[in-house]
């Protein structure tokens, strides 16, 4: 490493970004310790690591949100002192956040010039921005209507606006934080084309992700972070997904789910002509019909926001609907007093919701209190007619948390103190251990570490093999393909088609997800 640095200094081209011994601690937690890294100009550099590995902290230091406890940042070979985002912009750094920072009711142009209006009068800077945007759009395939308001744009276009914002501010270094999480495969492909164009123009790109496939596809070099340390920096062409995974987790990881072919039994869930119209009058679900048999996993693929959430919520008793749903042949209520999470649980439906932090868990509760969520009326949690038994719930929580290897194994720890993966295990332990006939699972591994993903997938397969029906919703195609026995694709509240995992590929599913039905017409 040291030799490299020396070598770099002797070279005529200094690295675009050089970090030397960056350290940052929050209290006793060392978020970054002695991170050193070089990124060559005109390259795409990936940074991968599990949640909490310190990726975001490192980038926040680079963008001026945090100040490093020690260490130096060199941009193009000269030391810079970045104390806020203004400094970062001046140093030529642009950042595209995971959650966009755009003013929804402003136009694209207004958002782009926000903060760099350059004068009291808007008109001159707007016309200048319009010209610049046109040039940028042509150069990098970054086409966006400059006069559209943000709220009329889809996620992919919003992301382009963020990139335009950075480029308009003359960024030479672009940092993207988990940029593909919200994109369809096609949109992601487009983004990668844009990034390659930028690279050709000599821009340096830092690409933060936890998806190994993307790292392999787009980056030139990749750094792996684990527990605040940078464990390796390698050339992408010289590594493999499995060795990267091992570097991230610190042990060997199975990337493919090992499972037998399913042996489906009777029909557990039968949905006929399900419709949901929300209170704005928008049809969220349109004539959904499907069935899931005992002992099989039905995967629902689709880009987020195409009705999958509503489907889960109707089944979970959170949203009202019209149509018919049968569980083990018995009709369940879709409206009124009986359509609620309590009666659903009594009917044998367990629900691991998509958004565990807002639906599945109460973050302020202690872990044991969340073990009772939804099952608080269950008889084994009561002391007598009037009092709940906290002791009984705690005993149950200890057992469940042990079984699902929730770490730390501390039932009185506040839920927000657990990592994403352990929070998810907490939900799974609660829902699976009740032995439901039907398990609804939404985004089971969103924001979950690779190590925990493996465990969660194994649990779902185990439940399937125990003869239970599972309805799986995920935006991760890889996950859908590896877990499901059958796959359905949803688009705009409708089911676009059904595929068998072994007889389809990502491209075919991707077209369905984009609403293009190649089969029939």
């Amino acid at each position, binding site marked *: 490493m040291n030799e490299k640095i020396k070598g770099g200094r002797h070279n005529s081209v200094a690295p675009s970004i050089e970090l030397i011994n960056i350290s940052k601690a929050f*209290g006793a937690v060392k978020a970054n310790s002695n991170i050193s890294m070089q990124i060559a100009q005109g390259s795409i550099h990936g940074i991968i690591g599990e949640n909490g590995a310190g990726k975001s902290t490192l980038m926040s230091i680079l963008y001026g949100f945090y100040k490093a406890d020690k260490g130096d940042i060199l941009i193009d070979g000269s030391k810079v002192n970045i104390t806020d985002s203004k400094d970062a912009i001046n140093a030529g750094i642009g950042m595209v956040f995971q959650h966009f920072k755009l003013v929804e009711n402003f136009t694209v142009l207004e958002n782009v010039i926000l903060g760099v209006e350059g004068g009291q009068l808007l008109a001159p800077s707007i016309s200048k921005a319009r010209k610049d945007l046109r040039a940028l759009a042509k150069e990098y395939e970054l086409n966006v209507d400059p006069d559209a308001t943000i709220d009329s744009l889809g996620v992919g276009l919003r992301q382009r606006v963020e990139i335009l914002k950075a480029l308009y501010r003359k960024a030479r270094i672009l940092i993207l934080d988990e940029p593909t999480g919200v994109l369809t495969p096609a949109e992601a492909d487009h983004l990668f084309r844009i990034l390659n164009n930028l690279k050709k123009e000599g821009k340096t790109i830092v690409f933060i992700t936890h998806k190994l496939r993307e790292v392999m596809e787009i980056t030139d070099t990749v750094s792996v972070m684990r527990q605040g340390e940078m464990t390796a920096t390698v050339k992408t062409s010289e590594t493999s997904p499995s060795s990267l995974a091992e570097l991230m987790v610190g042990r060997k990881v199975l990337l493919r789910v090992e499972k037998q072919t399913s042996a489906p039994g009777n029909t557990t869930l039968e949905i006929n002509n399900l419709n949901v119209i929300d209170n704005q009058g928008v049809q969220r679900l349109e004539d959904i019909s499907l069935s899931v048999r005992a002992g099989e996993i039905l995967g629902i693929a689709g880009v987020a926001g195409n009705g999958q959430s509503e489907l889960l919520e109707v089944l*979970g008793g959170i949203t009202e609907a019209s149509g018919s749903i049968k569980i083990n042949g018995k009709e369940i209520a879709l409206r009124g007093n009986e359509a609620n999470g309590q009666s659903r649980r009594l009917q044998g439906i367990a629900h691991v919701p998509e*958004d565990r932090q807002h639906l599945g868990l109460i973050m302020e509760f202690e872990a044991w209190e969340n073990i009772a969520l939804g099952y608080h009326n269950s008889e084994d949690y009561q002391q007598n007619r009037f009092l709940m038994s906290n002791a009984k719930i705690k005993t149950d929580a200890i057992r469940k948390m042990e079984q699902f290897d929730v770490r730390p194994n501390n039932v009185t720890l506040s839920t927000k103190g657990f990592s994403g993966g352990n929070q998810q295990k907490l939900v799974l332990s609660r829902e699976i251990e009740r032995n439901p006939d039907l398990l609804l699972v939404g985004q089971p591994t969103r924001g979950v570490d690779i190590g925990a993903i493996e465990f969660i997938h194994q649990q779902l397969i185990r439940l399937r093999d125990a003869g239970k029906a599972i309805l799986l919703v995920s935006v991760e195609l890889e996950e859908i393909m590896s877990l499901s026995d059958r796959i359905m694709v949803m688009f705009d509240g409708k089911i676009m088609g059904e595929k068998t995992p072994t007889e389809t590929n990502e491209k075919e599913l991707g077209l369905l997800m984009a609403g293009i039905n190649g089969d029939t017409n």
Partner: protein
Amino acid sequence: MDVLPKWVDTVIIPLIGVLISLIFSGIIILLIGENPIDALKLMITGALGSTYGWGYTLYYATNFIFTGLAVSVAFHARMFNIGGEGQAAIGGLGVAIVCLSFGWTHWFPALLAATLGAAIFGALWAAIPAYLQGKYGSHIVITTIMFNFIAASLLNYLLVNVMRPTGSMDPATQKFPEATSLPSLHDMLEPVGISFSKAGPANISFLIALIACVLVWIFIWHTRLGYQLRAYGHSESAAKYAGIKPFKIIMISMLISGALAGMMATNNVMGEAERLIMNSTEGAGFIGIAVALMGRSHPLGVLLAALLFGFLYQGGAELAMWTTIPRELIVVIQALVILFTGALENMVRAPLNWLWLKSRRGTS
């Protein structure tokens, strides 16, 4: 974990807040030419230095326990009940009707009936805003504030036109019958050989307040309903996911809250004034918000915070009586305590957190 331990959060931070407010109050007292140390001593001896002082301190504290608990229970369901003032006032109406309508012969049945009457009236008064919130989403803060005004106007009308004895100039009911007079702490402690000043208005409803603390604690942390209430309070979406019905929780939390606020009337109306007067609550409903905030919505915290405010009220009265510190300034001192223990709590917490983490890093 790197969070402040619970005892720091619940004990040390409020204490530091009180300390800071004392320092600021001291500076203000100094500025108007009085000696702050003497003033503090006077407050302490006046409020806590004798059974006479305790008789008043506990009287005020009883009011604040009820209203503080009321705000706390609602707050566990994230209902911000600003209407304690109105609910307590209407609770007073319930007490007055109970005390004046029946031929009571002993205080004990009268107290039971009056407590029930106060609770029902207070709960009903809270039920309307709760229903509007649950069914139509009308914001509970707005509606409960409006209901404070409506309660005041309603009592005005009743006291001036209906319940005022003929010929009386005071807009107040007639005195309650002698039999409904509640035993004071003096009466209660005399048989066990403790001499307690006769003067203070503290009475048996202080014990009811203590029992209410215990019951609220059991309710919030040891019943299914309390569990659902807290779940709903932390996350409405998660509660819905768990099959908890928002409307039911809103109604129950506000009914209990209103009942607790109403029960305050057993202390100030039945125990002290022994008649219903205009503005009998005197802002205790609002102090309840500060008490709940400071007590972290926990009954024990509410009890301690209520005692602190009882002390401030009684100590303030002593200051008004024996010094030239004007009563407006005493209100300022009370406001400073609210400011530093409630509103500016994070100002204390942040540096303390930092210190804590620093010391942790040092030892580990």
